[in-house]
C-alpha cells in the first residue's frame, strides 16, 4: 500500500492505494498519528484502494472518533468492493462517504 499526503491549510488529505489490511493498517495508523494533530479536517481518498479488511476499518474508526470534536473526517471516491464492506459492517451509517 502507498499513502500520498497533501496538506491544504488545516485540511489533511491522504490518498491510499493498494490493500488496507492487517499488514498495511499500521502504516496508515502511523501516518495518521503523525499528521492528524495539526489538522482540523481529514479527507481520505480511496479512489485507488482495492480492498479493506477489519484491521483497516479499525484504523478508520479511530480516525473518525479523533476527528469528531473537530471538523470531521470524509472518505471520498470509494470503489464498489470497499463500499460493500462499509455497508455490510454498518460503517456506511457512521462515516461521511462521498
Amino acid at each position: 500500500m502507498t499513502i500520498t499526503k497533501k496538506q491544504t491549510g488545516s485540511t489533511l488529505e491522504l490518498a491510499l492505494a493498494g490493500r488496507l489490511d492487517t499488514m498495511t493498517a499500521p502504516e496508515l495508523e502511523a501516518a495518521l498519528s503523525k499528521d492528524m494533530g495539526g489538522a482540523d479536517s481529514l479527507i481520505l481518498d480511496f479512489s485507488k484502494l482495492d480492498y479493506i479488511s477489519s484491521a483497516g476499518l479499525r484504523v478508520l474508526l479511530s480516525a473518525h472518533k479523533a476527528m469528531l470534536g473537530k471538523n470531521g473526517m470524509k472518505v471520498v471516491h470509494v470503489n464498489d468492493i470497499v463500499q460493500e464492506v462499509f455497508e455490510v459492517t454498518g460503517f456506511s451509517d457512521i462515516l461521511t462517504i462521498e
Partner: protein
Amino acid sequence: MPEKSVREMGGWELFHYSLKTKVFRATLMGALVLGLVAMAVGLSSYTMSMIDRYIGESFGLAKSTAVIAERWISEDVIAHMVMDIYNGLTPEERAQTGTPEYRERFAHVMNEKAFKYLKAILKDMLETGDVDDIYFGIFDRERQALVYICDPDESEKTGFWPGEWETVEKTEIERFYSWDGKGKLYDISNMPPYGWMCTSGVPLRDEEGGITGFILADVTLTNVAHGMRRFVLVYVLALLATIILVGWLMVRRMKRMLVQPINAIADTAKKYVEDRRRGITATDHFSRLSIRTGDEVENLSLVMAEMERDLTDYEEYLTQVTAEKERIETELDLARRIQADMLPSVFPPFPDRSDVDIYASMTPAKEVGGDFYDFFLIDEDHLGLTIADISGKGIPAALFMMTCKTLVQNNATAGFGPSEVLSAVNRQICQNNREQMFVTMWFGILDLQTGRLVAANAGHEFPALKKPGQRFEIYKDKHCFVLGGMDNTVYKEYEMQLEPGTKLFVYTDGVPEATDKRDQAFGTERMLAALNEPCQDDKCQAVLERVQLAIARFVGSAPQFDDITMLCVEYKGPNGEGGGSCRR
C-alpha cells in the same frame, strides 16, 4: 580454480595450490622476466663494447703500420708494379687468380727490396697485434675487387700472393675511398668461409695526396660470439641460482608471515566448530591465538577473537530468546486450545431434540484468531445463535472474543431480544475499549416451537437462507454498525418465519475472502455454488463439509490468512417433520 576446497585436498594437490607454491612460482616468474630483460641489455652492451674494442685494436694497428710504411718504404713502387701487370691482363687471364700461372706473372715483385721490407713489417705487426691478418692492398673500383699487394700470411689457404684479388662490395670500396680521416674506418661484413669479419683500413697516400693503397687489418668476430656465449652461460647460471635462492627465502618468509598464521587460524576455527558441535559454547580459542605479524593477518585474528566473544554473547542471548519464544509458543498453543474448547464442539449438541439440526466449525489460521460461533438454549424453546468476527488477531483478539461470547450469553439468558442484547454488549464493550477493537456479529434467537427467528446484524456478513425445496440464497438483512465502534449505536432487529426444513447458513469473512495463489478471492458466488451442489446428504454437517471442501480445492497450497468459521442450522418444525430436501 580447483574443483574442491583446500580442506579436502591432500599431499601433492595441496602443495600445488598452496600459498607457498604460488608465491614461489610468482617470485620465479617475476625474477625470470626481470633477469631476462637485464640479460638482453647486458648482452647487447657487452657485444657492442667487444666489437668496439676489436675495431679499435685493428684500426690502431692498421694506422701504426701505415705510418711506418709511409715513412720507410716506397710501397707505391710495388703498388705500381703490381697494378701495371694487373691492369694489363685480359678479363680471362684475370679470372685465373689463385692459379700458379697467375701467380707466376707477379712473382718477380716479391723479390723487390721494398716488398720484402713491407712484408717483414706487416709480419711483425701481425705478431704483435691481436688481429687475424694485416696486409697492403688496392681497391679496383672499376671491377669491384680488392687486389692484394703484400700479404704476410703465407698459408696456402688464407694467404694471398701479390696481384691476387677477391670481389668486394661496392659500398665497402666507396666507404674506404670517401673517408674524411675522422673516427675509425672499418667495415663489418659476413664473408664465408671466415664468417663475420671486421676490416679496418688506413689509406696510404703519395706526395700529391692521391691514394696509393690501403693498409687493411682483418679481425674475425667469432671471438665475440664465443664471448657472448660464455657471458650468457655464466649469467643464466648466476640468475637461476639467485632466483631460486630469493624464491626460497621468500617462501620461508611467506611461511612464517602468512601461511603459518593462516593455518593456525584455520586450525583454531576447526577446533572452535568441533567444540560447538560438542555443545561447548564458552570458548576463547581465538583470543589465545597470539599472532604478532603486525599486518592484516594479525588484524584477522583479532577480528576472529572479537567475533568469537560476540558469538558467545549472541548465542546466550539467542538461547534466552528461543526459550522465551518456545514458552510463548506453548502458551499460544494452549490459548488456541482453550479458545477452541470455549466453542461448543460436540455434535449433535441436543441429541434428544428432533426440532433442530445444527453444525458449526472453525478452522483457525496459524495464530489464535478472533472468530467465534456459539449456540445455546435460552430456555426450552429458544435457541440463541451467534457468529462473530473480531477485528485483529492473536491473543488480544482471543481475549476480546471470550468477553464478547460471555456478554452475549449473559444478556441473552437474561431474557433480552437480539437488538437489546447487541445494544447491551456494545455498551459494555465500549466502556473500556482503548484499543478500538470491534466485532462484527450476527445474533439470532430461534423459537423452536413456532419457527420464528428474530435476529440483528452488527456489521456482519449477510446470512444465506434456504427455504424448503429451494436453493440457498443470500438474505440481505438489516445492517447495523459493528459492536465496539460507537457506544450510542442502536441495533435494529428483524423477524422472519422459518418453515420446517428451512436452513440458515452464517459465516465469517474468512469464507468469501479465502484466497488462492493468484490472490483471487473465493467469493460469495462460489460459496453459494458449493452450498447448492447436488448432494446425497442434506444434514447441516454435510453442508459445511461441502463448503469446506470447495474452499480447500479453490485455495490449493496458498496459506490461510484468516479464520474460516461457519454455522448451519436447520429448523425441522416442532415435531421434526422438515428436512430431506436434498437436490439430486
